[in-house]
């Protein structure tokens, strides 16, 4: 009986905060748009039988027919993949340097990685607008050094979105990789060198495989939120940056088409289920390996 209660608590939590909202969104995605409050039909006040009769997959068919949507999905996937890779490229050396730093420095370095979280995410993204704009700090600095004669256009391009995503999600990449590298026994690298590896070979054959779990975890932690990212593309990206999070927002607030917006969200969730399941499997395997 006690066990039942213990198990019931997390399941009730999931049911109330995940499954029920999802079912509501899913129901809306099967509805039709209407100028009313709420802006869709049918509702349960219409009676049970007419309610179910009115539901259909029209909105999903619409998503498939209009190429805006699947282009936005593909573009989001591409941006999320590339920015995950870029975050890995930037984050791995930082995590490596942190793991190699003297013991007494590590808490400070860790603090520096987490420090940006003390400021609101929105303010930090706005700050990037100040840095990247035509009259921004970056352009002024480059003009001052004489490297460029014309200010660069970075803000409102996909490049700015990449910069924004890499900046925002960098700690999520660094921390799991650091955790993996920190546990790495230094004598393994010495053993590899002793057995004939150059520094680089030892890194490639020992350090990378042994930090694989950290790399995988970090990559998913960046990829999953980046795929549905809305704030960064809408603030830093221009009209040329097509991301599904932005499309969803526009459907919802600009077009007030809740059913289509819900359909977009349902598809996004289905896409995300794959990496989430893979991520969970990686975590589980890591936990098993440590036993």
């Amino acid at each position, binding site marked *: 009986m006690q066990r039942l209660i213990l198990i019931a608590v997390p399941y009730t939590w999931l049911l109330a905060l995940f499954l029920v909202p999802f079912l509501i969104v899913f129901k809306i995605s099967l509805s039709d748009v209407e100028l009313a409050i709420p802006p869709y039909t049918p509702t349960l006040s219409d009676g049970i039988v007419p309610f179910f009769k009115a539901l259909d997959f029209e909105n999903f068919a619409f998503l498939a027919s209009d190429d805006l949507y699947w282009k936005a999905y593909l573009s989001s996937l591409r941006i999320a993949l590339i920015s995950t890779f870029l975050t890995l490229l930037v984050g791995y050396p930082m995590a490596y340097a942190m793991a190699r730093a003297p013991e007494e420095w590590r808490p400070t370095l860790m603090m520096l990685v987490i420090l940006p979280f003390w400021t609101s995410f929105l303010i930090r993204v706005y700050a990037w607008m100040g840095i990247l704009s035509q009259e921004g700090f970056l352009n002024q600095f480059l003009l001052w050094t004489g490297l460029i004669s014309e200010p660069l256009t970075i803000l409102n391009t996909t490049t700015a979105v990449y910069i924004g995503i890499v900046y925002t999600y960098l700690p999520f990449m660094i921390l799991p990789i650091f955790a993996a590298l920190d546990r790495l026994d230094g004598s*393994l690298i010495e053993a590899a060198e002793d*057995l*004939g590896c150059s520094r680089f070979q030892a890194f490639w054959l*020992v350090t990378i495989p042994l930090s694989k779990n950290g790399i995988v975890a970090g990559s998913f932690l960046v990829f999953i939120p980046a795929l549905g990212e809305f704030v960064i593309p809408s603030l830093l990206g221009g009209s040329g940056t097509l991301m599904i999070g932005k499309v969803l927002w526009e459907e919802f607030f600009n077009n007030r088409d809740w059913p289509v917006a819900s359909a977009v969200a349902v598809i996004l969730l289905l896409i995300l289920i794959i990496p989430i399941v893979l991520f969970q499997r990686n975590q589980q395997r890591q936990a098993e390996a440590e036993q």
Partner: protein
Amino acid sequence: MPESVFAPWNDASQKPLIRFRNVTKSFGDFTAIDDLTLDIYEQEFFALLGPSGCGKTTMMRMLAGFETPTSGVIELAGQDIAPVPPNKRAVNMMFQSYALFPHLSVYENIAFGLRRGNMPKQDIDDRVSEMLKLTRLEKFARRKPHQISGGQRQRVALARSLAKAPKLLLLDEPLGALDAKLRQATQFELMDIQEKTGTTFVIVTHDQEEAMTVASRVAVMDEGRIMQVATPEHIYEVPESVYVADFIGDVNIIKGAASPVGEQTYQIKWSKTAAPLNAVSDRPFSEGQSCHLAIRPEKVGIHADRPADADNAVQGTILDIAYLGNISTYHVELPGGQIVKAQTANTRRVSRRSFTWEDTVWLSWTATAGVLLAQ
């Protein structure tokens, strides 16, 4: 023709495999190795023995290439190895933690070093099989390091470091993580493998029994200096200093003043009341020079009555008896307060033991039993 004794260190025509020449290694203010000169010969099983922090591991790491000497030269087969990086040295190391690659199988761990060269695949396979057989690990080739026992891991580490047939194998506390029984068995296994492969082994250990068992020569180290290098028997029977005598095994040290009585024979006045002791020494002492007489407990006899023709005989009372099964150690207090340990083999059952606490007994030893040391 009788088989010659393996003792290249006594043969002037032999070239040492490793030469430390005036090597000093400092870490900041701390001097880990202090102006050290040492030769190690081919096919030796050489033990570096000392308390932790004496610099033995630093010496090993310099041989492996993980540290460079602050000054002085280390030669391997006549060549200065300072500029050679670890991956280019014909030296392999077995790490104290074994440092097995957790993501690779036993087979791949052993093959790791071989794959770094241009060895053909078939040859790698043959060599790994040979190593697996040598270390009796054939059944575990496919397992990962975390799926085998500590003793098996130790053998994988040994096989991996031997696979490349190094000129020199370094073993850093190789048996430290094994329990006593397994450690003893493995010591003999190590000696066997060393003999079979003919590789020069340098072992670092703080366990004097281990060093005595496996090594052809032992270097006793203290604070970055070598106190004595000799065969295990020599180190035990003819220590050159009180430090070495005390570090290796159990010893009684009696302080006194020497006075020569004949050629190489001395009398040692050690107490105001008792008769002086007689000792033979190759090392010359002048009249009145302070000296230490070092006698191993097993060379001290214990008797109920004064033995008639002993060179040295002293009377005392038994303070303590340490019963170790095969032997018993008696702690006997002499009139001046000096405590002398005497050991006897327990050839009889305990119930018929001849001495007990508070008994007055006589201790005796011959003039050649002890070693007379200046310091």
